């Protein structure tokens, strides 16, 4: 592994950044839904039009997976990531339709040093998924763990 670009110190509270760009294709929606979420509004265009969602759209789990990929490409793979214990909350606010182009907006809302592990810090991110109309289609909030550039020192925030 090469030296990470981002450590815990590199995510200051209050910082907001936008990144990623993903064109959501019909083929990918069908492929994911066939394996993990075979409901008519994720598989069948006609049934989806008649449904409460109004058109063929990605499984919410697929949206989470696509967001994860954009997070990986945007910073996690270049970071001292130590994983995440889970996700506090995900809201699927609007459907992600075929040919939508989605991106991420990430805000660091809280952080703290680990008391038991001086080499580690915890960071809470609120990540929004936006579509090409700038609508927030999904939000995700949760803590993740990162290695520290300067283990054990007091953080400035």
């Amino acid at each position: 592994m090469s030296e990470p670009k981002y450590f815990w110190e590199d995510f200051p509270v209050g910082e907001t950044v936008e990144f990623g760009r993903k064109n959501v294709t019909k083929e990918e929606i069908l492929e994911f839904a066939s394996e993990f979420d075979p409901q008519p509004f994720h598989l069948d265009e006609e049934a989806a039009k008649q449904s409460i969602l109004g058109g063929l759209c990605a499984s919410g789990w697929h949206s989470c997976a696509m967001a994860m990929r954009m997070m990986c490409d945007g910073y996690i793979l270049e970071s001292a990531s130590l994983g995440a214990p889970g996700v506090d909350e995900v809201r699927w606010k609007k459907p992600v339709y075929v040919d939508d182009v989605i991106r991420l907006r990430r805000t660091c809302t809280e952080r703290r040093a680990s008391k038991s592990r001086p080499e580690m810090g915890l960071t809470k991110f609120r990540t929004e998924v936006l579509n090409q109309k700038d609508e927030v289609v999904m939000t995700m909030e949760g803590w993740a763990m990162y290695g520290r550039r300067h283990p054990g020192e007091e953080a400035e925030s």
Partner: protein
Amino acid sequence: MPWFEDIKIGSRLDLGSHTFTAEEIVAFATKYDPQYFHTDAEAAKDGPFGTLTASGWHTSATWMKLMIAARQGRDEPLDADGRKPPAGGPSPGFLDMKWPAPVRAGDTISYSSEVIEKLDMRTRPGWGIVRSRNTGVNQNGETVLNFIGQGLIQRRHPRGE
């Protein structure tokens, strides 16, 4: 699905189990979560878990897969007037998801779902929200997944009618 009115708090559904192969762990992670401890069995030996592990999103999406299969395997009765029970609705999201232990290649995870709460919807009188406590447990009895899921379910009789 049963109608919203017929869903009982405390009712529990065993969803069956799934064995995670190394091939599918790598295939999922290569597309959606390409951190080396999910994609490279060799490199994962030096990673946080000392072995290849599934993306948490893979563990979670597999809950959905088994939930749909379990629903499809159950024939809900027709109403007395011949009305068919509703299909499953969409979800507004989930809460409090935890991955307390990793899923390793070869692990068999047993999933379940228990109804914990039913909520009216202000904006949609024809629907209600059902909340469930969902878990995945491995062959050693360790919990690998725990979250509160939510689903919109149609009411037999819309509220206020």
